[in-house]
């Protein structure tokens, strides 16, 4: 029976980011959430476990405050959770996150068959941790998967590429990154949340890991993106509709 790992990230909910007066970003009233794309990864791990038996393990790397996310992940059906925490883990870059995950997975988790990641995190959306993690662990990587099945010692996955779909088989253990339409994540009920509190969690601190390397991608600026548009508003009566279409014609975008 397979042992399946779902990786997730606790991220800033971008809906709460305000634009400051000088085009800076105001994070003062932000809330946090499990990255949307990672909810699909968790859901797929849990569904696979429910179909095949075995267990679903959630793992995240983040600041100590992200401890809240563990209960969230466990209420979504994972059996146990690993949390790699340090106050300095607030701005990890993909290569560092992949390094930490690889370290924990290869030294703390006895055996695994499949690792599932979201297609990207909903904050920075670099889409690198999954493939980088597979490389660090030297296992096959199938990204942008819309459907998969596990059969004995291999995974058969449908990978969506620009021209269509590739059906790929790879020996286990392997890593997949899943597309957001692979499933609709469940909404945990009260019972799920209560049960989540009883499930085992393992917290690993930075001192227990080998030193994490310096960032390979240095952020030198972060500012509100600008979309300067005229924001001209129109009503719905005949005259207004004519004025609206007139405006489009004046811009030369309709015949």
């Amino acid at each position, binding site marked *: 029976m397979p042992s399946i790992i779902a990786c997730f990230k606790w991220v800033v909910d971008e809906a709460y980011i305000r634009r400051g007066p000088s085009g800076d970003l105001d994070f003062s009233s932000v809330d946090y959430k499990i990255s949307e794309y990672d909810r699909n990864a968790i859901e797929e791990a849990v569904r696979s476990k429910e179909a095949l038996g075995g267990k679903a393990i959630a793992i995240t790397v983040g600041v100590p405050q992200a401890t809240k996310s563990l209960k969230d992940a466990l209420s979504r059906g994972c059996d146990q959770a690993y949390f790699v925490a340090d106050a300095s883990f607030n701005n990890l870059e993909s290569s560092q996150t992949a390094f930490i995950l690889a370290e924990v997975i290869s030294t703390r988790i006895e055996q695994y068959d499949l690792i599932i990641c979201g297609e990207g995190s909903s904050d920075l959306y670099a889409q690198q941790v999954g493939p980088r993690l597979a490389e660090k662990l030297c296992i096959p990587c199938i990204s942008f998967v819309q459907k998969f099945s596990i059969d004995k010692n291999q995974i058969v996955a449908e990978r969506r590429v620009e021209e269509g779909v590739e059906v790929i088989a790879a020996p286990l253990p392997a890593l997949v990154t899943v597309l957001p339409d692979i499933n609709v994540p469940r909404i945990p009920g009260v019972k799920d949340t209560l049960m989540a509190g009883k499930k085992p969690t393992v917290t690993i601190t930075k001192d227990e890991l080998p030193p994490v390397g310096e960032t390979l991608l240095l952020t030198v600026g972060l500012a509100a993106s600008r979309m300067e548009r*005229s*924001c001209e508003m129109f009503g719905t009566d005949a005259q207004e509709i004519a004025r609206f279409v007139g405006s489009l014609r004046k811009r030369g975008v309709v015949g």
Partner: protein
Amino acid sequence: MAGVWIISENRERALELLNIGRQLAAKMGTHVSALLYQDREEVQGCISHGADEVMLLPPLSSDQSPDTYIPVIIEEAKKRDPDLILLPATARGKDMAARIAARLDVGLCSSCIALSFDDGSKSLVMERLAYGGVAVQKVICTARPAMASIPPRTFEKAVPDEGRQGQIRELPAPAPSAAKILERKVKERAAKDISEARAVVCVGRGIDKKEDLALARQLADVLGGEIGCTRPIAEEFHWLPEEVCIGLSGIQVKPDIYLGIGVSGQVQHVTGIRNARVIAAVNKDENAPIFKVADFGIIGDLYDVVPKLVNELKK
């Protein structure tokens, strides 16, 4: 050694990368090398469009994916120490870029939308969108080579110069990969390609039922364009195929006119339309975020407004 490398499996993307690669190489005082898979016929095309050298990889058997080439590319990069490696931010390109970056232990700017080389500091500053498109993040790679994946159509295709000369080098064949392609299903397009459409009518959650897509279709027809949709329409309701879903994790469009009907304007969606020449929207909620990023907006019920628009546009 050194140089700007471009790696692309497809001709269109290669020509776009050659354009920006050529510009950067000129500023950096270096040359451009293009890695080509299999296709010998493209060699001269790459050279005339800006490559000083083509590195040709041998063909793969049909059950092998281009990521099989990664170890060969890594070996070559270690030997030749390029300054910069560019790939297209397509599904395969993004995956391959991250895996090459991991093996070389270097940084990678994913979905990079702008690159500028600063002559004074000799650093390459790259821009990308973050937080669903709310922010622009500027980054620098701290190790050699710098790497970026660039979304399709971010740059124009390079202009050919038939007189250009270049070198050809053959690279060794890779060992077969453990992952095997069992089948390739070429997409039977359920919809027209909206990434190249001149006009895009986008349907959002404001639409009540699938049959009402006919309204959007009428509007698209008078505008001479195609229909796209927001994520819930494709993903939750399955009223339109995933391939016309516009947004950060879907398609980025740049039509002359984008007209959203019943689209609220979540930031992830807006990221997919930021390069439209004109953005227009119809929504009954005057506080819908789409109006903040639109040139022209109509506050009203789409079921009332759209037929009126169709009539007016026919005049």
